[in-house]
Structure formats: structure tokens, C-alpha cells
């Protein structure tokens, strides 16, 4: 707990320090590759026969996902706090890779906790983390996925806090993490707003992002919260379907509870035991969700929907074939949710989707399922 107080204080000072902000901006730009483009997906817009689709290209960040935004911020903070070691949990391996990257960049030791199940399905990212000099520790307790990796990282931190900073990868965990991660990810929404005003001279009608813990969604949404004409849609993974027990749809099916120091929606059984989640996307495989998303849902400012694994795969394939962009499976859920929303929208409207990461890490998973889907898509293509 003292660790959290220490972090809270350090962050409160840093966020107001012009020197810290300058360093953050410079590092995001020169090392992270910001600003990321806002790209109009013309062929996808055409296919969906709906509004104009813009993609915020977070997949073009260094390391291939939005995760680096938060990691650069927290690594700079860790350095200010004189910590010599970084630890993190990771699901898809994108956050772990980003942490391993900033650890190398700033000369810090690095340990990543990853569920044994995830290590198998996200093998390329495990290799990347090791190549960057990080130690990757398989977590076999519980369900051997993201929530257990988070528990294990918290256990490490409780014992190592004197010299270690824990970079939580999403807007979850105890305060100040949800707020701090949101702040560091808000660069997505701030840039997107500026870019869409330049291109369209107006704000978008709808923002869409996938929601696991919720960091890429909140990063996009937060700077638009006061622009009430802009609707916001978060898309959770319905896995095999909401009517099955194999999903990760926390906001759709959870009820309030406490996990990892946050009070938010939680997938749990009658007795308050946390339920295992299932989705094709390792990055969305978390039974909790950032408390600010629960708040946005309850207040009605944002709405949340789900897409099941098969719809996400279909959307993934469409982006590959129509736009030449291979999206992460996580981001494919945003695409699937947007596609559904587009049906009820006019052609002069604008949807802005957060393309949170690139899909190289998911090749094995996608390819194993692609044949049936590919046949279907080719068929649909021939019909046009």
C-alpha cells in the first residue's frame, strides 16, 4: 500500500512538471513513433456501405500496439523514483513486449509474468521479450492467463517494491493505476481529435474501441467525454457467445466486485469467486474491467456491446484484404463492433475506430481458422 502512496505522490508531481512532460513527448515522438496516422479506410467504408471509417493507427507504434504509450510514461516515472527494475503482467504479450522495450531503452532490469496458456498462443511475443533482455516467467496458477499473471506480478511487487516499479498494462488495478494509465493513453484521443478536425472539419459521430481491461478504449474516449455529440462504443469479446460460459464480456455479464484493488464490474460466480474467461484474443482475456468504463456505462456516456470470436475473425480478414492492414485480434473486435454499428448509420457520418495493435503475433491463431473464413470472403468478394 505504501508503494501506491509513493507512486501517487510521484505521479502527482511528475504530471505537473514541464520537464517530465517534455521528456515524455520527445520520447513518444522519437522512440515511440508518434503521432500515429489517422487513416481513412476507403475500401472498408465501401464494403460496409455505411459511414466513413477512420482508423487511428496505433498498430504503427513502436512494438506494434498502443501499449508503448503507457510504458514510456511509467518508465520515465520509474526512473524519477529511482527504481532499477520493471515488472509487468502480460496477456497477448504486447504489453510485456512494450515493457521489455522501455526497460532496455532506459537500462532497467525486467521481469514479465505471463500465463502459461498465453505463452503458448502468443509465442512470437515471448521470443521478442527474451530478445530484449527480459525474463519471462510462466504463471501456472489459477487459469494460467492474464488475471493470474496480474496476481503474480502483484505478489512480486509486494516483495520487491523498494527497488521495483510495477507497470500495470491497463486501466485496472489499485489507484492510481487506472487513472495514470488513462492519462498516458489519452494521447490517442487527443491526437485523433486534432486529426479528424483537420481532415473533416468536424468531430466523428462514433468512436469504437475494443475493451479488455480498457486502456486503448479509455485512451481514445477520455479526451472526447465532454463532446457529448460524439457517441462512444466499447466492444467486449463474447468468445463462443454470450449465452455460453466461454466469453470475456465483463460489462455485459458481470456485476460489481473487487479484483486486484479495483471496484468495478467483474465476472464472478454466486460466491464472489472470479470466473475464468475465454476468448480467441489473449489481450481481452480478463474477468475485470477498468472502473472508469463501469462508470461511463452506468452514466450512459458510453455504450458497450460484444462481438463473438467468429465475427472478429471475419472483420480481421476484411481489413487484411481490403486495406492491406493485418490487425491484432483485439482490435478485430473493435472492427466487428463498428461493422455492426455502421448498419444503422448514414453515409455522411463518421466512425473513428481505434486500431490498437497489429496482428503479426496472432498469425498462428488466425491461420489455423482462416480457411473456412477465407473461402467465404472470396465468395463475397466475387459477388461485388
Amino acid at each position, binding site marked *: 500500500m505504501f508503494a501506491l502512496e509513493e507512486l501517487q505522490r510521484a505521479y502527482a508531481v511528475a504530471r505537473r512538471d514541464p520537464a517530465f512532460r517534455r521528456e515524455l513527448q520527445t520520447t513518444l515522438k522519437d522512440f515511440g513513433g508518434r503521432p500515429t496516422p489517422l487513416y481513412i479506410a476507403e475500401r472498408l467504408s465501401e464494403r460496409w456501405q455505411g459511414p466513413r471509417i477512420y482508423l487511428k493507427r496505433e498498430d504503427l507504434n513502436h512494438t506494434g500496439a498502443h501499449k508503448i504509450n503507457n510504458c514510456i510514461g511509467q518508465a520515465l516515472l520509474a526512473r524519477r523514483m529511482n527504481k532499477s527494475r520493471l515488472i509487468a503482467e502480460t496477456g497477448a504479450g504486447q504489453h510485456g513486449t512494450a515493457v521489455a522495450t522501455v526497460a532496455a531503452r532506459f537500462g532497467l532490469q525486467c521481469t514479465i509474468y505471463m500465463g502459461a496458456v498465453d505463452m503458448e498462443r502468443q509465442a512470437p511475443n515471448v521470443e521478442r521479450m527474451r530478445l530484449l533482455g527480459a525474463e519471462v516467467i510462466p504463471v501456472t496458477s489459477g487459469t494460467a492467463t492474464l488475471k493470474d499473471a496480474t496476481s503474480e506480478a502483484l505478489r512480486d511487487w509486494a516483495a520487491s517494491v523498494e527497488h521495483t516499479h510495477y507497470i500495470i498494462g491497463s486501466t485496472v488495478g489499485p489507484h492510481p493505476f487506472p487513472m495514470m494509465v488513462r492519462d498516458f493513453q489519452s494521447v490517442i484521443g487527443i491526437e485523433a481529435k486534432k486529426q479528424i478536425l483537420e481532415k473533416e472539419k468536424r468531430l466523428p459521430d462514433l468512436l469504437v474501441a475494443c475493451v479488455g481491461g480498457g486502456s486503448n478504449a479509455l485512451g481514445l474516449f477520455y479526451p472526447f467525454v465532454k463532446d457529448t455529440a460524439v457517441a462512444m462504443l466499447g466492444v467486449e469479446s463474447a468468445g463462443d457467445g454470450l449465452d455460453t460460459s466461454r466469453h470475456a464480456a465483463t460489462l455485459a455479464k458481470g456485476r460489481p466486485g*473487487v479484483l486486484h484493488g479495483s471496484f468495478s464490474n467483474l465476472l464472478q460466480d454466486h460466491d464472489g469467486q472470479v470466473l475464468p474467461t475465454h476468448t480467441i484474443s489473449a489481450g481481452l482475456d480478463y474477468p475485470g474491467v477498468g472502473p472508469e468504463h463501469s462508470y461511463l456505462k452506468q452514466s450512459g456516456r458510453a455504450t458497450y456491446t460484444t462481438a463473438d470470436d467468429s465475427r472478429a475473425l471475419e472483420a480481421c480478414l476484411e481489413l487484411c484484404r481490403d486495406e492491406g492492414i493485418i490487425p491484432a485480434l483485439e482490435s478485430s473486435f473493435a472492427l466487428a463492433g463498428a461493422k455492426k454499428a455502421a448498419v444503422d448509420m448514414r453515409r455522411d457520418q463518421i466512425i473513428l475506430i481505434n486500431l490498437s495493435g497489429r496482428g503479426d503475433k496472432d498469425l498462428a491463431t488466425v491461420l489455423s481458422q482462416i480457411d473456412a473464413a477465407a473461402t467465404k470472403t472470396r465468395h463475397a468478394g466475387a459477388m461485388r
Partner: protein
Amino acid sequence: MSAIASAFTHSRAEGRAALIPYFMAGYPSEDAFCRLVASSFDVGADIVEVGIPFSDPVADGPAIQRAGQSSLERNITIDRVISMLTSLKLKGNQPVVLMSYLNPILQFGVKRFLASAHTAGVRGLIVPDLVVEEGKSIEADCQSASIDLIYLVAPTSPPERQKLIMKRSRGFVYAVSVLGVTGVRSALPDNLLTRLREVKQMSRLPVAVGFGISSPQAAARAAQVADGIVVGSALIERMNTEQNEHNQVQSVLDLLGQFRSATTLKSTTTDIARK
């Protein structure tokens, strides 16, 4: 005086630290667990701490995690824990302290949980993922239910925070001996006694020390300063070396007897620690 306070008064009068074994509810079986709790008092335990299993026990090391997982697989719910404790017909001088993560209690309903726990002989509650900043409402509910809410104090906490925790804790203060999670450690930190003395000077309540008390020797050392010793993982690990339930229970009771001797007569514990 609460049952917990008088347990400490009693042990102090005998010139020893209170012995507080921890058991995971329903582990290794419901029957063996019940025998362990009841017999612990017979071999000299002053208070018994009982863990309620949780799917994501972030404060616990591998031994307690696995025991909890085993209990969950056998459907040990709060209702089962209460009914097992009720069946023991605990006496007034056999106080039980429950250790539960926050979520199972919240879902059960805090007031209902405390009322039924009290009826079953529970006199104290430890919630490892409850911080004082969020504790006001549960503190009030505990007070109405005559259950002491016991807070953990970490060695890394600065004195101001330690003072705040001690002010808000009831029954006793649970000092975490080492950073990190529960579980046996080969050695306790060198400055443990110094730190414990500092904590004790600030505290109006008895101070029990736990996390990482691996052996009677380690307990003896901590007992030079602490008013109570909590031992959990070491008992579970001992239990796990035996095959049948009878031996599991017996081996734990034997080990507890050794802990009791080690924490008795503080003047001689120094000698044991030096060996």
C-alpha cells in the same frame, strides 16, 4: 475485553507470545480441518486463524494458494466455513479469526457475513486487500457485530501510516514480518526485531507477527518482541508431506506443540535463537 484481547492478556501473563495457527478452511478435508481447529486449542493455540478460499489470493504464497484452490474445488463456500465452525461449538476462550479477501464477503453481504460468523465463534476478521482508506464502513459493521477488524501493517510503511493503521485496528495489529506474500522463508530479515520494537512502541494493541515464520526457531526469535506469532504456510507444508489424513493432522499438532514450546518463556527463547 474482547475474546481476542483476553487471549493476549492470558499469554502475556504466562510470559509467552500468543500462538496463532492459520488453517485454510476445508483443507485438507472438511473433517481434518475441523479436527485441526479443535485440537489446536488443546495443544496450546491461543487464537486460530481460518482462511476463506478465494480464486485470486494476491497476498498468499504457493502453499496457501494451492490449499485454497483445493478447497474451492471441493466447494468450500462461506456457508460451509460457517457451518464447519458452528459444528465445533467453540468456547469463549477459543476465539477464531477469519481471513478473507474482500470480494467473497461483499458478495455474501457484509452484515449477514459478520452476524453468522459471530454466532459460529468468530471474533476477528482480517481482510488482506482492504486498505484503511476504504475501511470505514466495514469497521463500523464489525464493531456492531462485536468482531475485531484486524489490519495488516507492512514493514515498508512509513511511521505515519503505521500509526494510522494501529489507530484503526482492533484486537491486535498484524505485522507482516517480510515484504511479499505468505509463505516460509529461509531467514527472517536481520532488522525484524528492531522494526517490531518500533511498531510495538507505537501500538496500544498487541502486535502479532506473521508471513514467513518458517520454524519454531524463527518463531522463538520473533517472540522476543512480538505479542503473538502467526504460522500458516509452514503447517500446510508439513501437512503435505504426509499421505493419510490422520498423519496429516497429527504431524501438524506435533509441529504446533514445538511452536508452543518455542514461544514460551521468553528468557530462554534467546538461547534457542542463537543455536
